[in-house]
């Protein structure tokens, strides 16, 4: 469903956000980026990131220590 998947498992702040931004820059408006992370701070970070940049955090969840976010590009 996602147009692109970004794996940031094992990476700590601020890398998940920085890598997500880098990916989103190359993607069309409205496209979906799915991010996987193990950084527990990522949940709050991606919420803040989306609020500030106008992206939509469509999905945000955690399963077995892996956080999964689906972001709709602004």
């Amino acid at each position, binding site marked *: 469903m996602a147009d692109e998947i970004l794996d940031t498992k094992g990476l700590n702040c*601020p*890398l998940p956000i*920085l890598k*997500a931004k880098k990916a989103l820059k190359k993607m069309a408006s409205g496209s979906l980026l799915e991010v996987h992370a193990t950084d527990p701070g990522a949940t709050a970070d991606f919420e803040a990131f989306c*609020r500030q940049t*106008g*992206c*939509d955090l469509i999905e945000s969840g955690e399963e077995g220590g892996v956080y999964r976010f689906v972001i709709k590009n602004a």
Partner: protein
Amino acid sequence: MSAAATTDLANAKSMSLIVTKGTLDWAYPPFILATTAAAMDVKVSMFFTFYGLPLLLKKLDLQVSPLGNAAMKMPMAGGHMAMPNMLAMLPGATAGTSVMMKNLMKKKGVASIEDLREAAVESEIDMIACQMTMDLFEYDLKDMIEGPRLGGAATFMENALNSDINLFI
């Protein structure tokens, strides 16, 4: 409905940082904050002065000393331990501590300063090298990375006056 994007120039947020420290530990706050802000569409400027200036050198060999660093308690044997000052002043203590911290960063998936700095240049953060410090400590522009421009206190002041956030690190 998502919040207003900061692509609107009138609402654009800005941050200026003055970077005055250059040890391995203190290199992190400015670069993490700057790159994260830039990722969140904030216009960022960083003014590297005094001991922050060597952070712009092409070849980095950042060090951190546990000497007199009372808050520095590292994960060790299941707990946290500080190195006694008597040991921290022995030859090799600073180099050893710095290597250990860099290894800890790698193990925990924390970006290196080199990577964060590259991200800062890539995201077009305005990086300014303090001209006075360059002169004072006899640094050469050719030893610095590509990207930063030269400036003085007035350059920083103008950025600061026009920024929503000003941080002294």
